[in-house]
Structure formats: C-alpha cells, structure tokens
C-alpha cells in the first residue's frame, strides 16, 4: 500500500505540488488523489480531489484555487457512474434519505485513479465506523481489473498495455526488418548494379576517340585505321554484352528477394491479424483489411523490386556520369549539370503536393471496396427491400469520389513529366551552345561534345525516371504505414508473458466483480458468478441483457475491463490463449462452415483426428445419418455458408465439431434458436450427448430448452438479477417468472392460431 508519508504528494502532477502543500496541514498524508478535468458545465478545466486520513479535499475544476473540504464520518459514501465518456463522482451523506453533498466530473481517462480513491475512501470511513485502523492490504490490486500487482508497481501492466505511441514517420525504413534475412543477396544485387551501371557508361566514352582519332581525321583526308576501329568497336560490343549479362543476373536476384520479402510481409501480417482480438475485427471492415493484405503488400513489393532498384541505379549512374564528365572537361561538365538543382527543386515541390494525395486515394479506394464488402454478403437484404438502385448509386458515388481525388492529383502529376522533358531539351541546348563555343575557341573537340551529348541524353532520362521514385516512395510509404498499422496493433487480449501451463481443467469457473465496457457503454457491471465443474448453467434474459457478452468474456474473446474470470482458481489472463481455448467448445447460433469437406469441417479444432473419431463425433451429434445420405458422404464439399445444408444440419456439424475436441467447458450460444421445433428436438438430442459431464453454459431464448439446466442465471441490463432452478424462480415470481409467462402466452397464441386454421 502507499505508505502514509508526505512523500506520496510527489505522485501528484507538478502544477499541483505547491498549491496542495499550502492546503494540507503538516504531517497530513495524502492517501489518494484524482485529477478532475471537467467542471459542472462539462467544460475542460483543471481540478483536484484529494483524500487524506480524515478528510476529503477538493479544488473544484475551474474555481481558480478555491478549496473545500469534508471531514470523513460514518454515513458518507462516494458513488460514481458514467455516461458517454464522462464520469460523475458524488459524495452522498446517508441521513433519513440520501443527500448529495458534492459532485465532481472527469473524463474516463482518470477512471483508474477514481476507483482507487473510492476504495481508499471506503476503507477510511469503515475505519472510523469500527474504530479499527484501516486494514492494510498485503497485495495491491489494480483498481480496474483487480489483478494483483507486484509490490511497488504503480500501474497495472494489463491496463496500460494500450500504448499510444504513434508509429514513426520513417515507416519505410521499418521494412528493413523484413529485408534483413536477405541482406547478402541484396548486397550482391547492389554490387551487380554498380558493375552493370559502370558497363553501360563505357560506350559513350568510346565514341570520343572514335570521333577524334578516326572519323574527323578521315574527313581531313587521313585513311581509317582499321585495327584501331576494330578495337574500339570490340570494346563497345563487350561493354554492351557485359551490361546485359550483369543487368540480367541483378534483376533476377533482386526480383527473387523482393518476392520473398513480399511473402514474409503478407504472412507476418496475416499471422498478426489472426492473433488480434475480436474487438479489432469488430471495428474494421473486411474490405479494408483484404485491401491492405492484398494490394498494399503488392505495392510495397513492386517498390522494393522495381522502383527502389531503378532509383539506386539512377543515383549511381548520375554520380558516375558526373565524375566522368568532370574528368573529360570540367567547364562543359559544369554547364551540363547546371539544371540539376532546378530538377531537384521541382522534385521536392511535387513531392509535397503528392505526399498526401496518394494516402487519400488509398482511403477512397478502400471505400470503394467497402461498398462491395457490405453489399455482396447482404445481397439478400438488398434484393428483398428492392434497394439495388440505391446500392448501385452508393457504389457510383464512391467511384465518383475516387475519380475526383485522382483527377485532383493528376493535375499536379501530369505537369511533372513534360516539365522534366522540357528541362532535358533545354539542357541539351545549353550543352550544344557551350560546346560549339568551346570548339570554336579550340578548347574542346568534336569527340568530347559527342560524348557529352551521348551521356546527358541518358543523364536526363535518368532524372526523369528518378522523379518517378517520388510517387512510388509516397505510395509505398503509405502502404507500409497501413501494413504497420496492423502489425503495431497490440491485441487487446494479450498473451501472458509467462503463461501458466493448463493441461487439465476441471471446468470450475468463477467470475469476481466482473465489468465490461464496450466503447463508452458499460455492458456488464459488478457481476459475480461461480460455476461448479460439470454444472449446466442456463443464461436467460432479454436480448441486450449481456448474455452473449458474458460468454465472450468467458471465452476470452474480450478481456474484462474490471474484475477477473478464473478457471480452477487461475485468472484466464495468465494462461496462454490457445491453451485455454482448447478446453472450450463453442456452438454458435449461426454455425460457420469453411470451404472443404464435411470431415474437414468436423475436424476443424483437431485436424489430426482419425476417421473413426470423426464418425463417433458425428454419431453423437446425430449428424451421421444425414451425412451418409449425401452423395459423397463425409467427403461432400460444403461452401462458405454451408450451401446445400439446412440450418439444423449445419448446426449438428458444428456440434460434432465441438464434441470432437472433447472440451471441459461447453458454451451453447443460442444453438437451437435458428431452427424449427422438429429440428430442435434432433439438435437437443445431440446436445444432451454433448453436455454430459461438462461444465455447460447455455444461452437460449426458448426457456423450454433449458429444462435440464442445474441453475438458471437471469440477467438484466448487464447484471445478474436472479439465480436458481426453474421451480425456485417460478415460485419467486420475479424476472424469470415474467419471462416465462410471456413465452407461455406466446406459445399459447401460436397454438390457438394453429387450431383456428
């Protein structure tokens, strides 16, 4: 526990230090503090709430240093609730009726501090009531999740794992992580590039002596020196062949490497994606994720293999050319290279213009794919409500936005290449003019001028292709960022650092003070539940009462925001996720069948299962017979949504799937609600086999299907309101009774309607 010493003031933010020191008496220890960041009108203002041993001190937000204090006494309590991200903390005195003494507001950012303060406050008030000193805890628990903290650990590692450090803007360099395994191939590729670029620079150099020593003397009446010509032409041929071979090997090696990097990038991203929690998938759209994994890795790939390579070649070429030009004729070289700064400036200018453009085009493009990802799975709804026109319109609009964005960018982009060409022409003109002038003054030769013209012809095309790197880099950087957005995302259901092995479980589940918040909505609050091994629990309640959320918490699809879920006394957050889920069998309302054979689908959770095991599971799930009636038996193919099979048949396959892994804990989430009564009976028989001897948690809308449950847990708005068996709950005439009566009435109506027909 924080020791009762003045040093605990040090944990306050700096700006409060002096002010607090002025308002507390000497030796008065601060037990807890809460920074307030909102005033009563909900404006952002600073305030502070402090708890000392015998009073509560507050500097109201926005009050400019007005302090109030309340002596601690029995009957005082702090109560907090939140709505839409704003929490209210109320100090209430219990007299003949509760009286509100004061209230404070803060954003949920400070919720942890608030919970800690409330906890301390309650302890102090209890101590005053009983006259005993407040119990000191041996273990410190995180106020949010109640996980035990190490001594001296201020913040809970589980709660602070959501780091808000943005990825660096130098995202492209992060690709090095993927390039590193191939560094030797990359180095070879680079050296080959160097050599082949050198080879391509030889031919223009040879035109110089050819001109000055052979052709011009010939024009002046000297005969042609054939052996010399042969040597020069031979040199040209060798240089061309060398450049060809080296370029070929280089391109091949680097293309291989880049494909491998692309593969690694895709698989790593997918692996990471699979490890993320359901919360992540809930917030993302399928089209967007598919686009990221498909197009964007491809774009990075092209960038690495083509664009970057070309760029390296270009830079080398330019440098080497410049060196050669200067060695031949420094003055002419200087004039030739004069437009370079202009081009560099132009590139820089356009880079600024294009930088944001490509990222925005990507987003707009994702919007286009999102329309597809939305409507194609929902095509039945679209058609049923005759909204084809509207969806087509939506798609047209998305395309229109994409077009508009591209149009805007192309305006800048299109002017770029012609400008580079224009500069090339001007550069050539300058070289011609200066070259002729130099020749006229006998400072240069025709051969030198020819060589220069040959060189800078290549030189400026290089600059032109170099300018393409601008857009390629931007696109690749944008793509890299979006890939790393996935890779940097830490799963909100993290793997424990030192997972506890869990080879066997008995199936005892206990939930203690569980709370769960989805966004700013509190879905489950202060829930306590103990489930014995082998017990069958039926979860009932209106839709939206938190039943499915509770099941998601038990499966650890989400982590509790408060409290803990324990299995055999072990917090499930300390068990490796895969290790834990192996003990859980899940049968969902809407069974999902993967593309593949029925046998593969049954063995999904245990791919190494033998055929006999698969058949045994199918028999137990009452699926064996209908499978045999299919043309190819267990080898029949089923599609994405299990086309060709009825809802009940698919459900029984998913029950067989759960049976095969022989889990200790079984979760049935509305497993029978999507089928008719006849099929339900079949499924019920299958389920009866399934639940035997396992801890079972069943959610069912039809209360009749929960007859076998040992206990029924009735939930309402995120809390357990009743627990007991059917008869108890009926006798109590509470929530369950009303639910049951309502269903009976419904059934009776259906039956009587049937009679009238």
């Amino acid at each position, binding site marked *: 526990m924080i020791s009762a010493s003045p040093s605990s003031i040090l944990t306050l933010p700096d700006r409060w230090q002096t002010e607090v020191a002025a308002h507390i008496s000497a030796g008065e220890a601060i037990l807890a503090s809460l920074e307030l*960041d*909102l005033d*009563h*009108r*909900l*404006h*952002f*203002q600073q305030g502070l709430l402090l708890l000392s041993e015998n009073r509560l001190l507050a500097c109201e937000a926005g009050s400019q240093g007005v302090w109030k204090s309340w002596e601690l006494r029995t009957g005082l309590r702090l109560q907090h609730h939140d*709505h*839409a*991200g*704003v929490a*209210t903390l*109320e100090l*209430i005195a219990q007299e003949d*009726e*509760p*009286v*509100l003494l004061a*209230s404070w*507001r803060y*954003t*949920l*950012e400070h919720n942890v501090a608030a919970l800690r303060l409330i906890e301390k406050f309650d302890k102090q008030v209890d101590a005053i009531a009983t006259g005993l000193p407040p119990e000191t805890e041996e273990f410190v628990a995180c106020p949010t999740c109640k996980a035990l903290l190490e001594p001296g650990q201020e913040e809970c590692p589980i709660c602070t794992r*959501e780091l*808000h*450090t*943005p*990825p*660096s*803007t130098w*995202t492209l360099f992060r690709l090095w992580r993927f390039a590193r395994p191939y560094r030797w191939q990359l180095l070879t590729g680079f050296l080959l590039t160097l050599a082949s670029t050198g080879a391509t620079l030889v031919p223009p150099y040879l035109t110089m002596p050819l001109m000055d020593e052979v052709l011009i003397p010939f024009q002046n009446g000297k005969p042609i020196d054939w052996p010399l010509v042969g040597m020069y032409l031979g040199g040209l041929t060798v240089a061309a062949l060398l450049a060809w071979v080296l370029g070929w090997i280089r391109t091949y090696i680097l293309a291989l490497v880049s494909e491998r990097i692309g593969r690694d990038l895709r698989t790593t991203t997918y692996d990471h994606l699979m490890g993320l929690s359901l919360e992540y998938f809930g*917030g*993302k*759209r399928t089209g*967007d994720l598919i686009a990221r994994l498909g197009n964007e890795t491809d774009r990075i790939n092209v960038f690495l293999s083509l664009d970057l390579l070309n760029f390296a070649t270009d830079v080398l070429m330019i440098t080497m050319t410049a060196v050669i030009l200067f060695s031949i004729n420094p003055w002419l070289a200087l004039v030739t290279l004069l437009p370079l700064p202009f081009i560099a400036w132009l590139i820089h200018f356009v880079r600024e213009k294009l930088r*944001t453009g490509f*990222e*925005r085009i990507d*987003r707009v493009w994702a919007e286009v794919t999102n329309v597809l990802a939305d409507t194609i799975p929902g095509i039945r709804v679209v058609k049923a409500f005759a909204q084809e026109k509207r969806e087509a319109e939506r798609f047209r609009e998305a395309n229109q936005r994409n077009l508009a964005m591209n149009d805007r960018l192309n305006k800048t982009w299109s002017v770029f290449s012609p400008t580079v060409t224009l500069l090339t022409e001007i550069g050539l003109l300058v070289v011609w003019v200066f070259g002729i002038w130099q020749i006229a003054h006998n400072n240069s030769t025709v051969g030198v001028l020819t060589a220069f013209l040959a060189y800078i012809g290549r030189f400026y095309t290089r600059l032109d292709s170099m300018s393409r790197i601008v857009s390629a880099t931007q696109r690749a950087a944008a793509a890299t*960022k979006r890939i790393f*957005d996935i890779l940097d995302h830490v799963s909100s259901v993290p793997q424990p650092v030192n997972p506890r092995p869990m080879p066997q479980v008995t199936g005892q589940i206990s939930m203690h003070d569980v709370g769960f918040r989805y*966004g*700013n*909505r509190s879905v489950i609050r202060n829930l306590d539940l103990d489930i014995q091994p082998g017990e069958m629990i039926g979860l009932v309640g209106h839709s939206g009462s938190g039943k499915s959320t509770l099941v998601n918490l038990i499966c650890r699809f989400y982590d509790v925001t408060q409290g803990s879920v324990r299995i055999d006394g072990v917090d499930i957050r300390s068990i490796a996720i895969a290790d834990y889920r192996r003990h859980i069998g899940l049968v969902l309302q809407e069974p999902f069948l993967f593309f593949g054979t029925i046998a593969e689908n049954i063995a999904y959770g245990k791919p190494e299962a033998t055929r006999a095991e698969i058949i045994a599971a199918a028999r137990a799930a009452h699926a064996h017979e209908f499978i045999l009636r299919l043309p190819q038996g267990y080898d029949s193919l089923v599609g994405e949504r299990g086309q060709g099979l009825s809802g009940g048949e698919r459900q029984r396959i998913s029950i067989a799937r759960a049976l095969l892994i022989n889990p200790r804990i079984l979760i049935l989430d509305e497993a029978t609600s999507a089928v008719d009564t006849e099929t339900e009976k079949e499924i019920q028989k299958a389920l009866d086999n399934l639940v035997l001897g396992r801890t079972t948690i069943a959610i069912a809308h039809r209360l009749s299907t929960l007859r076998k449950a040992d206990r029924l847990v009735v939930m309402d*708005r995120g809390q357990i309101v009743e627990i007991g068996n059917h008869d108890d709950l009926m006798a109590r005439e509470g929530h369950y009774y009303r639910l049951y009566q309502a269903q009976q009435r419904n059934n009776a109506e259906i039956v009587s309607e049937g009679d009238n027909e």
Partner: protein
Amino acid sequence: MSKIEFTLARNRSGRLVCTLADGSVHANITPVRAFPLAAPNEGLALMSQDGHEIVWVDTLDELNPDQRALIDSELTGREFMPEISRLNSVSSFATPSTWSVTTNRGTTAFVLKGEEDIRRLPNNGLLIADNHGILYLIADRKALDRHSRKLLERFL
C-alpha cells in the same frame, strides 16, 4: 398534441423525480434525446432508473419553462460532445495520434486510435471518437480555419 401532464422536481440527492398525472412517482429520471445529432430538439424521453420510458416528449418546445429548465440542466451535466473549433496540433499523421484541440468547452488533448474512429456526418460534419469513447464534433469541417483543415485533411 396537448401538453404532457407531469411534474418534475429535484430531490435532495440531486436526482430528478417525475410525478405523472395518474399520481405515480418515479425517482432517478434521466432525460434522453432520441436523435442527439440529427434532431436534438425533437424527441425526448424521460427514462426511469430501470431503463423504461416514462414520458415521451415530441419536441422540447412543448415543455413548460420549469420542466424545460430542469431538463436542460440535467442534459448539460449529461450530454458531453465538445465541438472542435480548431485543431492546434497533432502528434503524428499516423494513428494513434494525440490531437490538441480547442473546443467550445475549452482546450484539451485526446488520443485518436485510428482513422475509422472519424465518422462522417451529413453537411461536412465529422464525429470523432477518442480512445475513451468521448465524442468530439466538428459541425462543418469546411468552416474550420486553414491550419485545422490542413491537419484534418491528412486523416480523411
């Protein structure tokens, strides 16, 4: 529609108490707008503690001044959607990014988890959710100053 017959009062623990024409008394009443964004002045429900609708008000204008004052005061303490008037700075253009903003409720900073937390509203409006689920409103992004628009553009 005639005036709704109910009286409102605040009890000592600071909660609203609603008494209906039939004499039934409901404590801990919460006023809730049905369309807080699209039509804040139309459709208001008074919800009981256990989440049932007690009174439905078609438009806020039908309320008498006393009721209106109590409901308004309750709503101001409950509705929290700061309207951003200026983006002062953002920590990075890659998310998660910390935004420093000036709002109609003072300046503050919040963390934007991802671009998908920016929701588009009709008429160039934006609704931005921070990492704690607090919603920030930009009524018309075209009406922001140049600096803010430039920063914002990078996230859209």
